């Protein structure tokens, strides 16, 4: 009898530990990594390094909030990387080819990037293609569109266009500021806060989650389901394009597929965010925490001189673990 009760007690305790870890594991891991990197590498401790990490995750975070919004409706936007690339190409062309001012260039680039959202929404909502596959298609389409538009993928100051036309436009200094700290960090935090408030405290955020939870029940509750799914894809494209603009400001030129590399860490961040604090839903703050974890890992590993070509192994593993935690929790 005592053996049995003991056995039962231990059975009970074990899930509690698992439960705790799946809630707070991410934050715990961040601290463990911080301590580990600081202990092994004295250079890591300097405050400028923390700033470096925050700065380096800004773009990933913003793009990841886009994915997060698409996840709320039980969708998945794989095209965010291409949207970012596209936005970079657009905004650079406006500066370098046409000499536009900062505000005009940013606004037009953001608006034009929403074309991707429109195509996504059309494929997913109207033609009823599975989200992942539809956005896989648009991912390729708009990668190609960006390349074609730029004539090979890159634009930088003074570089002539593909047909040989010389260019005279300059990248405004105030635009470059966007990509520097503290502005880049502030922008990131403001965006995370806005998305968080939108998802958590507004009617629309509530509806997005409901649509993701049970589409038929949402529809029969009088929610315009298709409108909200469309909204989700527009928001995710808008956020991804914003990430692209920040990226453009950071590197000061358009490069071939410059946004593509952000897809994977952004997906990882969004999925790690699911389980942070036991929310078990895609959420903006969790996504930020996820991005910090991914960024910290990447930074620390680079400083430990792990070669960049091996980094993907680690990043991929982190993604696998994040997915494991998310989906494992879903099934109990």
């Amino acid at each position, binding site marked *: 009898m005592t053996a049995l009760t003991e056995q039962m007690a231990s059975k009970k305790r074990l899930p509690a530990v698992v439960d705790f870890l799946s809630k707070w594991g991410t934050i715990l891991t961040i601290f463990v990594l911080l301590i580990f990197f600081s202990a092994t590498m004295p250079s890591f401790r300097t405050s400028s390094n923390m700033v470096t990490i925050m700065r380096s995750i800004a773009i990933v975070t913003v793009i990841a909030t886009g994915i997060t919004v698409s996840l709320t409706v039980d969708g998945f936007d794989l095209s965010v990387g291409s949207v970012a690339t596209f936005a970079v190409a657009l905004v650079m062309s406006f500066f370098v080819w046409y000499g536009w001012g900062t505000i005009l260039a940013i606004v037009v680039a953001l608006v034009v990037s929403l074309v991707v959202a429109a195509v996504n929404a059309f494929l997913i909502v109207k033609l009823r293609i599975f989200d992942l596959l539809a956005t896989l298609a648009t991912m390729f389409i708009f990668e190609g569109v960006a390349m074609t538009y730029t004539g090979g993928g890159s634009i930088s100051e003074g570089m002539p266009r593909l047909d040989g036309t010389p260019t005279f436009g300059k990248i405004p200094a105030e635009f470059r500021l966007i990509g520097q700290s503290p502005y880049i960090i502030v922008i990131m935090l403001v965006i995370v806060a806005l998305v968080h408030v939108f998802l958590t405290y507004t009617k629309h955020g509530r509806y997005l989650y*409901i649509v993701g939870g049970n589409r038929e029940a949402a529809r029969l509750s009088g929610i315009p389901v298709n409108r909200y799914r469309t909204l989700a894809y527009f928001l995710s494209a808008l956020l991804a394009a914003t990430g692209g603009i920040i990226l453009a400001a950071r590197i000061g030129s358009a490069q071939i597929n410059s946004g593509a590399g952000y897809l994977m860490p952004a997906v990882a961040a969004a999925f790690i965010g699911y389980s942070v604090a036991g929310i078990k839903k895609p959420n903006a703050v969790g996504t930020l925490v996820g991005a910090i974890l991914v960024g910290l890992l990447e930074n620390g590993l680079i400083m430990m001189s792990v070669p960049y070509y091996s980094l993907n192994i680690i990043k991929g593993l982190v993604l696998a673990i994040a997915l494991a935690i998310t989906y494992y929790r879903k099934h109990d």
Partner: protein
Amino acid sequence: MQPKHKLEMKGISIEFPGVKALSQADFAVESGEIHALVGANGAGKSTLMKILGGAYGHYQGEIYFDGQKVDIRHPQDAKRLGIDVVYQEVDTALIPYLTVAENIMLDVMANEMQGKHFIRWGQLHRRAREVMKQVGIQLDTSTLVENLTLAQKQLVLIARALATNTNFLVLDEPTAPLSQTETEELFRLMRDLVANQNIGIVFISHRLPEIFEICETITILRDGRVVADTTIETLTQQRLIELMLGHRFDETYPKMPVPIGETIFQVEELWEEQGRVRDVSLTVRAGEIVGVTGLVGAGKTELCKTLFGAYPIRSGQVRLHGKPLKITSPHAAVNQGVTLVPEERRKEGILVDEPVYVNLTLPSLDTFTRGVDFVDTRAERETARQLIRELGIRTPSENQKVAFLSGGNQQKVAVGKWLITDAEIYIFDEPTKGVDVGAKHDIFELIGQLAKRGKGIIYASSEIPEILGISDRIYVMYDYTIVKEFDTADATEEDILFYSAGGK
């Protein structure tokens, strides 16, 4: 003569966060008998049977099989003893995109295929057909389960249970979605199983006349405790309800006298796109409760859904206060003052992963917003608490996930969320399915209050006594159209049945 088996549960207690679902419950059933398990919503019936089926491992208490102590902690433990449970939510136990044969043989494939790797399709279908013959279902074994009616799914689950060696069969509210004929069919099967196959059956239902019709012994649960364990002859229905609810209860319909006004809702020659509604015309007056009845499959649900925009309208007119409505989607319907409480709560009515309050305020969320669409959660919770009280929803708080409520309490949430919307026309599709007698009464009362406020109500149900009890006027449906209209005062159950069955 096969040996009789006896299954006993002793001192069973189980807790969930914030809820003591069972305390010291005793329960026993023998082969060859049909044993009723009754109690109000949330009394712990399903939980007790889930323990028996091995779905929960964390209970206290003991289980004996033929006097021998057994440890049931996992579904396999129960299967080994020949205990099969057909759970309340049939849909969750079936795999919709597999065939009838595969679904029936699922347990066999899962448990008897050790060491074998190839499926022998011919044999699979043959064995499935044998079991089906025993159960009396006539179906092509290669039909996909998603195309079956609820009644057929129910039978497929019973067939699955019987495909493996079965000593005890638990049926948790099997008759809730069934029509009268289908129920009769099921009862015939149950009687055959106890008489000829030496199986013991546990039967759960909120339809008390059924209990008296088919069961010999009964256990009554109240708030997780056993309050009676006896033979059915010693009880009257009145006494049973008292034991179940813990107080005297007058089982009459609370029909309030409401002055009936002008016609407010008119439907003319309505056709649904795929002919699931055929040439239906009806009217509803202010303060009037209009019953829509007919057998399961007569097209009541289809009519409700079409009026609500969930199915596309091919032709016809729908007018509210004389103004033609454009019902292109449920969203449009709600905006124009038409609401529907849908029939299949799990799929259509509730969000199981959301807390109770989110479910309750969902259709009326607009009235809980401030400023730029910010949700006022305080007001929202306040309203939710009030509804929980009014409907007697059994939940530790408004923050509980709906998945953790009992079936009947989930139904109350599915109904409750529409009662606070501000609409003109309320359509209810089988709103009392799986709800206990006390709660039924509460729901009728709330519907009565809507009528009193001058709303128009369409109440679709195949429970004729209910329709007779609360409606002012009745439409009878057959084959997707309305075949007869009655003033409730002039209607009898026989008349309604006659027209329901296609009589002219």
